């Protein structure tokens, strides 16, 4: 197998090298390689260097297939901060790495599951922008739930 290396560039213009046969776990990269050989640098305009370093670490993992699932779970568990996980999920979406995307989203879902409404808003810095009409619509729709 050829050990061709690809270069990925983060949003903040840092360069990361990775062997092509590992990089093609990303469907996005695989398609690029198929199309034009992806000889030059592959830019990832939405992925910062911190997150890209994590993605590279993930792609470089040397796991036996039967242990891979556990590894992916542990990988996201160890990065249990919501902001990191959200960045990771977005990077996995852009690069189309399904396993990583699913695991990161699952972890965030687990974390926010037991939060109250206010805690979710606080953790994700989301403002409550609902209008009184919307509040009423929700109340009407879920009348049976209260």
């Amino acid at each position, binding site marked *: 197998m050829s050990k061709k290396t690809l270069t990925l560039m983060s949003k903040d213009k840092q360069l990361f090298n990775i062997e092509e046969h590992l990089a093609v776990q990303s469907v996005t990269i695989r398609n690029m390689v198929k199309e034009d050989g992806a000889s030059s640098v592959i830019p990832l305009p939405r992925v910062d260097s911190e997150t890209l370093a994590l993605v590279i670490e993930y792609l470089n993992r040397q796991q036996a297939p039967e242990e891979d699932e556990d590894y992916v779970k542990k990988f996201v568990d*160890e990065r249990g901060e919501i902001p990191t996980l959200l960045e990771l999920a977005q990077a996995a979406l852009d690069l189309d790495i399904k396993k990583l995307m699913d695991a990161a989203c699952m972890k965030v879902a687990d974390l926010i599951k037991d939060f109250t409404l206010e805690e979710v808003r606080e953790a*994700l810095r989301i403002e409550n922008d609902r209008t009184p009409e919307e509040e009423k619509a929700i109340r009407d729709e879920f009348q049976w739930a209260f």
Partner: protein
Amino acid sequence: MPSTSKSKRQKTKKQWQVMQPTRNWLELPSDVMASILSRVGLHDIIENAEKVCTAWRQICKDPSMWRVICIDYPCQYLSYERFTNMYKLAVDRSQGQLIDVTIAHFGFFGDFELLQYVADRSSQLRCLTIIAYDSLWYRSLTEALKKFPLLEKFSLYSYHISKEVVETVGCYCPLLKAFKLITVRSSFYRENVARCDKMAITIGENFHELEHLELIGNEMSNIGLQAILDGCPHLKSLDLEMCPFIDLKGDMGKRCSQQIKGLKLPDDQ
């Protein structure tokens, strides 16, 4: 390299705030948010997620969020009415796009009603899983199966799986590719072998196009297995875990491994 915060898994909200960069997470692609919200579970969506903000409510109302629904009784206390309404809402929101449904605690808390509700609104359904702990569900299943003509995968967990159930599935689900029948039991009896062989023969007679078959905890013998191998020439995988009366030591074992790529044997063989 930029410095990475190494603080592991902080538990309290306060720490989150300290960590939080000024990024507005609503700018995340909605695919990411939808993927997360689809994993928090129906109960949490209705209790919370949907009320967080307008964007989340829109995501939660999108039919694509509701293509897979697992109707299981949640651990929190819910009244029967609330439980049923919650799942009806989920089915309504799928707007006919439901493709995969799991119904557990069937015959319990009025789940007959929910299966019927799903059946009347989900003609696109591809995968159905039923976890049934009594036999009262059979008629209701028959009625429902008539309305799932596109079903490709059917899984049933039960104490007892009869020839009639297999016939019904064969009759109404012509596109079925994967059939999973799990008998939930802890002890096995010789006197059940003839009945289980009949069930297996019915599989052979009805599912010539079947590609994947799991018969876990089944009391059939080699007679039943032979009927399956003869009747289902396209089988790619066959799972015979916990089938104590199958004997694969002789020719039958050879035939199985020649005919089927993905073969899972009973535990001791």
